[in-house]
């Protein structure tokens, strides 16, 4: 059964900071469990400009990469979710 959690902390990096205008925000009332695709859609609703990253972006949930797709993630209160544009370290 789905529940709503209070509070997810979302971190933005690189181009996603420019697109959203924020580096970090708290989102309340996120359903859990949730597929990574639905989680991404939820972020897109808040920040439609993120759509330019569609097909390139992955998420990180509690500092583990999650591709955007059917994979279901379970979120705990105040869990950290990150938007991860294509990497370019090195």
């Amino acid at each position, binding site marked *: 059964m789905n529940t709503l959690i209070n509070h997810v902390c979302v971190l933005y990096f690189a*181009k996603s900071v420019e697109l959203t205008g924020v580096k970090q925000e708290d989102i309340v009332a996120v359903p859990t469990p949730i597929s990574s695709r639905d989680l991404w859609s939820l972020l897109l609703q808040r920040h439609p400009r993120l759509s330019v990253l569609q097909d390139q972006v992955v998420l990180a949930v509690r500092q583990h990469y999650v591709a955007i797709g059917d994979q279901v993630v379970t979120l705990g209160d105040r869990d950290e979710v*990150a938007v991860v544009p*294509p*990497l*370019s*370290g*090195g």
Partner: protein
Amino acid sequence: MSEEWRDVFKLSHDWLSVQEVVDAVSSTSCGAISVFIGTTREDEVDGRKVIGLEYEAYELMAQSEFAKLCSDIRERWPTVTHICVHHRLGWVKVGEASVAMAISSPHRHDGQQAIQHCIERLKANVPIWKKEVYDTQESSWKENSE
């Protein structure tokens, strides 16, 4: 060998010291230290000159991805002794090092293969980003092709 292995990862806003990275992996049980240094290349993109790079990282996750990378290296090349990676953050101007890494091993072949794997996997997995900054004040986020 009774000596333990060390995995050292540092994100730094300061100039990178190759000597410091090499010293971090030195060991009297090792005959070989392999080093890789990535520097900002002078480049022109669509007639604009690259004057430097601006780096940022998801710092905590970068640490944990580095730890995974090290265990992957140790699984593939069990003789690898110490691993040290220093990566710049913030502004890195053309000609300066953005990453310096060193791996020590008793014999050189393992270390040489491991260092290549280390830079490849770092580029692929460690959450760090750079944007190129041009002489026109414009900039663009880069994407590792590999």
